[in-house]
């Protein structure tokens, strides 16, 4: 049964829900489980329902596992970096010509499970450390996008009229530009270095969250509890940020998962083009870019492993995001 959402149009991240992935049995089970908990007198958590539904989705759980590993590694590496070091079997940056010519650019072996590149660096170590870049990009870029989008979105949706028009048309402009090109443009004016990459990606992604959120706001603002808040004398700010916004977050969490995946991919693309991370730092995209030429020579491992990490990580975010979306389907609640 087609689900009619007043959500974003023209945005690939959240689609119209068509077929529910849950069976009748699951639906009834949910209802009864809820009734049971209620009857048992235990207070129900707000996420209990979502978690129960999420647990059924194997793919989403796998995705969640990937994300957890990713975040752990990324955090560890970030902390290490800030402390001036790294956590890896070998130094990821120091070139080691001491490895004999046979050792430079060597395929996977017991001592170097992912092989080495032509500068004598252990691929595995570099891949590990590069996780930091990807995680930071994901988190910081999306955080920036959210802080803009989750202010403009609710304001646009709540006030409507000309405010809404202005904000949404501005968002349209941001949508109209091919994203990478836009980022490139912005990067030309920002100082070089990967900090700018985060900012560029973040600042240019706000429109997705704003548009998405505005749709939910349009329906939530007509709810009676919003009216109740106004009847009690709540001002606009309180109504928007205490009542409306928290109830529009469900699709946002999904968009965040997808957005982080997208940001990671974008950073890889930019690194591939030579922007962002500079040598000798490692990022997955940079490793792919640097080692592309060697592929023809048969040195697949320098390229393959960062690619695998990249793909698996993004896949993890997307699967989890999909699972989360199914689990928070408002039609299946209450």
């Amino acid at each position: 049964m087609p689900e009619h959402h007043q959500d974003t149009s023209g945005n690939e991240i959240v689609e119209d829900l068509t077929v529910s992935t849950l069976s009748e049995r699951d639906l009834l089970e949910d209802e009864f489980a809820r009734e049971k908990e209620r009857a048992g007198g235990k207070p129900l958590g707000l996420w209990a329902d979502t978690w129960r539904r999420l647990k059924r989705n194997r793919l989403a759980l796998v995705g969640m596992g990937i994300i957890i590993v990713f975040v752990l590694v990324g955090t560890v590496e970030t902390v290490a970096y800030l402390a001036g070091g790294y956590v890896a079997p070998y130094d990821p940056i120091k070139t080691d010509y001491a490895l004999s010519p046979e050792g430079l650019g060597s395929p996977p072996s017991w001592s170097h499970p992912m092989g080495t590149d032509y500068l004598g660096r252990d691929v595995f170590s570099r891949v590990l450390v590069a996780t930091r870049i990807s995680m930071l990009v994901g988190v910081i870029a999306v955080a920036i996008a959210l802080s803009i989008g989750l202010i403009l979105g609710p304001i646009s949706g709540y006030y409507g009229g000309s405010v809404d028009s202005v904000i949404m048309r501005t968002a349209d402009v941001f949508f109209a530009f091919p994203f990478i090109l836009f980022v490139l443009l912005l990067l030309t004016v920002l100082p070089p270095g990967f900090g700018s990459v985060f900012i560029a990606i973040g600042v240019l992604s706000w429109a997705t969250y704003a548009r998405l959120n505005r749709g939910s706001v349009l329906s939530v603002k007509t709810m009676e509890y919003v009216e109740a808040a106004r009847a009690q004398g709540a001002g606009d700010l309180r109504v928007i940020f205490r009542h409306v916004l928290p109830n529009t977050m469900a699709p946002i969490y999904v968009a965040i998962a997808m957005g982080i995946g997208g940001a990671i991919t974008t950073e890889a693309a930019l690194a591939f083009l030579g922007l962002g991370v500079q040598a000798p730092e490692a990022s997955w995209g940079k490793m792919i870019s640097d080692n592309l030429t060697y592929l023809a020579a048969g040195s697949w491992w320098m390229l393959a492993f960062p690619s695998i990490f990249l793909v698996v990580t993004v896949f993890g975010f997307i699967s989890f995001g999909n699972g989360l979306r199914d689990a928070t389907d408002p039609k299946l609640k209450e």
Partner: protein
Amino acid sequence: MSLLEVKDLKKHFPIKSGILKHTTGYVYAVDGISFNVEKGETLGLVGESGCGKSTTGRSVLRLIAPTAGTIMFEGVDVMAASRSDMQTLRRHMQIIFQDPYASLNPRMRVRSIVGESLKIHNIGTEAERKKRVFELLETVGLSVEHAERYPHEFSGGQRQRIGIARALALNPKLIICDEPVSALDVSIRAQVINLLEDLQDEFDLTYMVIAHDLSVVKHISDRVAVMYLGKIVEISDSAVLYDFPQHPYTEALLSAVPIPDPTTERARRRIILEGDVPSPANPPKGCVFHPRCPRAQEICTTAMPTLASTGGDAGKRHEVACYFPARFTGGVRTVPNQPFDGALAAAEN
């Protein structure tokens, strides 16, 4: 001075269409109604869908901005009130909503929901507010441990009680009850109706009850106003309304309400109205009820009759907006052939 005085209230919603969203028409949700609510009484506002009763309730609270008319609360002009005056007014006028599922923020705990108004108006310290919330919960028949829970953990009747506790938080003088029991199971309705009555006695409240269930309205109200298509067609004491309905719509409405008593039902004469209620975007000219009225005549197409008392046995508190209202003299019902002068006031102006 009445607690609430409403004069000639109007609310017209513009209908926008086309790319440029220009106004092509209006929905005449409320089209010139006047009534008073005295302190301590319960006024019932009854009517079917599209009659404008909910819009009226919300307009009184200025949750909707009225198009025209005056609303005076304790002598203060609600429509002209400044932002800070409105804040003060909000402490005196509160509302209970129909849908116990949609009227509580699902992401807030009960204590936050009930205590929010205290926070907004900066009343008391954190500890005092907490105490007040517990007090309120117990007043409505819930218990203190319910404060930490979320709305979805409660049944419909309990949620409605939470809504009532919320409305009482600021010690209001007037509470608008918008369909307070229609979304509840039958056996729960009586609980909530009794609760509302008890609270009225305990806290000296004044109610405006908006509902479509005439039995409930008659039971709980002192006076009842019957609305049709944005107008008040009759207003009187609730007991009188059932025994001596003057307006043809009131008669039809009363005869349509089922009474849980087979003998009475078998003996009843049912007045079935033809057709559907016209759209409030396109109300009939003249008396809004005339197309469906069993005793409509030429004059009914000219102008909407004014709300006035027919005097005599009906008394001053019983007003009707009809050119041919039924009269009851010594308990005998007659419908005069000549149009009622009191209703002509509008036609003449």
